[in-house]
Every structure is written in structure tokens, then in C-alpha cells.
């Protein structure tokens, strides 16, 4: 994963030969404003967040697209990761997707017990209460690209036992 501070033009998603770029921005990010696509056609999409409606739109855009295009996702990590997960479900491979995550922003913690996703501003290695089952979850840098979130597991489970 690359951060917004990395020069987008050097991204692995934009090697010579690609025939178009779908640029998706979430929230208020301006990361793609000056994103160079090397002169190939560019389609811009902007969503407030990666909510189900936005992801459905993204899926339908990808469903109409042809091999040869690249997808660039920019914005808060939680939104970018959710969109990357949807793109992977559509069959896109890593080389086709460039992630430009904001340096800071909320993360998604995926509860290993009830499978509910909780969005939090807490840093990695801390605890958060699960919105689904109210369990206090610890999360580390164990990240799932499929669910687009960090694994949360019952805090202090060993001590309780």
C-alpha cells in the first residue's frame, strides 16, 4: 500500500501500456487532482464515503470496463480499503489497483466474534468496543484485504480464562 505522499506517477498501477484510468476519490481528498494518467483517458468518480451505494456504483463501473484500465482509489484508509476489497471481488488483481490512502483517518476493525465492522480513530494496538456485540476488541496490524479491515479480537481473553 502506498500513501498519498508517494508520487502517484511512479505507482505500479500505471506502467506503460494501460489504456485508461478510473480515478475514485472518497470524502474531501484532493489527492487525485493532479494525478497524472500519462495522457490516457480518465474517468473520475467521487463519493462521500464507501457506503453500499457507492460500492454498487463502483462495481457497475468496473463491470462495464475492459482489461487494460487501471483503478486508483484515494481518500481515508477505511474507504479506500473497502473499495479495494470490492474491486478484488470484481476480479481485479493488485497490479490493476493503486491505493492512495490519507496519512490519517479512521480504520475499520472487523470483529472476529460477530463479524461486525466498527470504524474507529483509535491507533493500531489499542482497544475498541464492537458496535455489533459490545465486546472490547484489541486490534493489531493484522489486516484483511478481503474485508478491508483489521482483525479485532476479545481483549484480555487469556487473562479472563
Amino acid at each position: 500500500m502506498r500513501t498519498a505522499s508517494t508520487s502517484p506517477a511512479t505507482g505500479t498501477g500505471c506502467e506503460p501500456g494501460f489504456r485508461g484510468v478510473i480515478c475514485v476519490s472518497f470524502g474531501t481528498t484532493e489527492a487525485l487532482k493532479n494525478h497524472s494518467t500519462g495522457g490516457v483517458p480518465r474517468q473520475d468518480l467521487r463519493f462521500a464515503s464507501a457506503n453500499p451505494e457507492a460500492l454498487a456504483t463502483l462495481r457497475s463501473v468496473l463491470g462495464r470496463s475492459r482489461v487494460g484500465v487501471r483503478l486508483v482509489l484515494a481518500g481515508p484508509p477505511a474507504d479506500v480499503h473497502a473499495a479495494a476489497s470490492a474491486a478484488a471481488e470484481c476480479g481485479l488483481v493488485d497490479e490493476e489497483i493503486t491505493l492512495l490512502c490519507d496519512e490519517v483517518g479512521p480504520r475499520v476493525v472487523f470483529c472476529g466474534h460477530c463479524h461486525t465492522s466498527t470504524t474507529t480513530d483509535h491507533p493500531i494496538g489499542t482497544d475498541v468496543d464492537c458496535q455489533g456485540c459490545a465486546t472490547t476488541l484489541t486490534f493489531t496490524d493484522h489486516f484483511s484485504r478481503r474485508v478491508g479491515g483489521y482483525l479485532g479480537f476479545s481483549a484480555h481473553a487469556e487473562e479472563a480464562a
Partner: protein
Amino acid sequence: MTATALQTKVQQVVEGTLQLEVTNVSVQTDSITSITFGDPLGEVLPCYVPGSHLVVQYGSGANAYSLTGSGSAPTEYSISVLRVDGGSGGSLAMHALSVGDRVQVSHPRSAFAPAATAKHHLLIAAGIGITPVLSHARYAAEWGASASLIYVHRPGTGAHVAEARELLGSGLTECMDRGSFQEVLTRRLTTQKLGTHLYVCGPTAFMDSVLEQARDLGWPKGLLHSEAFSGAALDDGEPFAVNLARSGVKLDVPAGVSLLETLENAGLSVPNMCRKGICGECSVPVLRGKPLHRDLYLTDQEKEDNTAMMCCVSRSLDKELELDL
């Protein structure tokens, strides 16, 4: 002496293999014959991933052949072999097989698997390259996966044409000459939906051309799959030396002699199979020096790492290599 040398080699080849019986031989075309192997006791054979190949032993050598079945709970293994007069002899030996003959074969080996995440499989085959691709087509038909096939063959010389037509229906495009293939290829490469993976098998120049065009049209490497069935013709190479760190031996590898042969002549036993840089069996660890990688097994990254080399075909860029042997 010859008999002993032969025996050593045979043992290496048959390690962890199956002894099977030829259960059917059927002529596909003037030069292509299908051979089916089964367990002599009728047992179910190990299943395999579509696109897998089998290493079949003949005399003192062994060749890899693609399996043409889908691989699910197979009771038989089928290969189709193009007779190559003036080749190393494997295809002639295969064509000489008849029902009831016993052969030693490896377990199926997968190096051309379908991508599990693919939404569509675009299969491209030329000539005898149809064999692993037919395996993919059968698998797709069996599991309801989306697949299409461009099959380049000259009229009357294509193997498995009837099966391909039955399996793929309108998803099959047959091309009889280079011009019409080029037209179809360009159209397909520019109109595939995202999530399509491409699989190509055929002569080396054919595959190189397809893969290069795909890359030029923006297909990332991760979507491109190819199955080489012949190693490139390699030159004799420059002489070099190897320093075997663990055994404290230094050996000279003359031009025209492989490192594998040099190691064997020095009494070292290195597991090996295809001896063509395809199977990956004869990998040796490199401690120092830059190998001249000439195999088709290691990835580009692994070749850059210079920590392993296929001693059957690869040589050295430096005057001397140090190996962990």
C-alpha cells in the same frame, strides 16, 4: 558401466512416481496420438489441478506432457503427443506405446493453474498447445466457469477439435491462419471485461507474441498465464567454475556441459527430472556469484535474487560460483 549409470538416473526419475498401464491409444491426427494411462488395479488416480502435466519416463529420459482431463477424481490420465521426428526421442517412444504397456510417471505437477478469482478465462492455443488448455476448458465446463477459446490449427491437423467444439460451443473461435488469428486476438485483447485472465499455450514464438501484445494493450502480468512445453534451444555457453562450499570441492564446468552433468560426473546426486529448465527439480542454492539464468521455472524476482539456480540449463555470469552443496 553404462547399465549402472542408467540405473542411477532411472532411480532419480522414478522417485515418488506411479507405475501405470496404457489403457488406450487413439490416433488424433497424422502426427498426434492420445495415450491413456490407468492404474493396473483400477484404483482412482491422484486428482490434479487443470493445466497440470505429467512427467513420463522413456528409456533413460523423461518428458513432460500436459494432461487433457479436468483433473477431478480421475480414473485415468490422458496425454496427447505430437510426434517430433529428430527430437530427443520422447515423442517417438510415446507413439510406440500400446495397450498393456507399463510406464513410470510422476505425480501430476501444476504450473498452469486457472486463477481462482478470475471472472472469465480467455484460453488461447496453437497446435499441440491445445492439450493443457483443453484441461482448462473441461474444468470450466464441469464447474460452470466462464471460458472462451481461440484455437489456431490448420485444417485437418488440429487435435481435440470435436471436444473443443462440444465443450465451448459458441465460445470457441477457430483460426486457420495467422492473419485471421491476429485479427481475432487484437479484438479480444481490447474487449475483455475486467476480471478476465488469459492462458496461452503453443510454440514459444506464438506465446511470446501473444503475451507481448497483451502487455502492450495494458494487461498486467498477473492476468497472463503461459505454459511452455519446450525449453528454448540453448547455446553451449562459456566455461565457468563452481566452488562447493560444504564439500570443499571445486569443479570446472566446460562449455557444452551442464552444471548438472558436471555435478553428476563428480559423484553428486542432484534430484532432477526434465533437465530442460522447466520442472524446477534440480534447483541448487547459490551462495556467491551471479548465475546466468536460462530456465523457465524461477520468477523474474527469484532470478534477480540469485540465491538459487536450475543447474540443468543455467550457467554463470561470473568466472566462479559458490554453491551450498
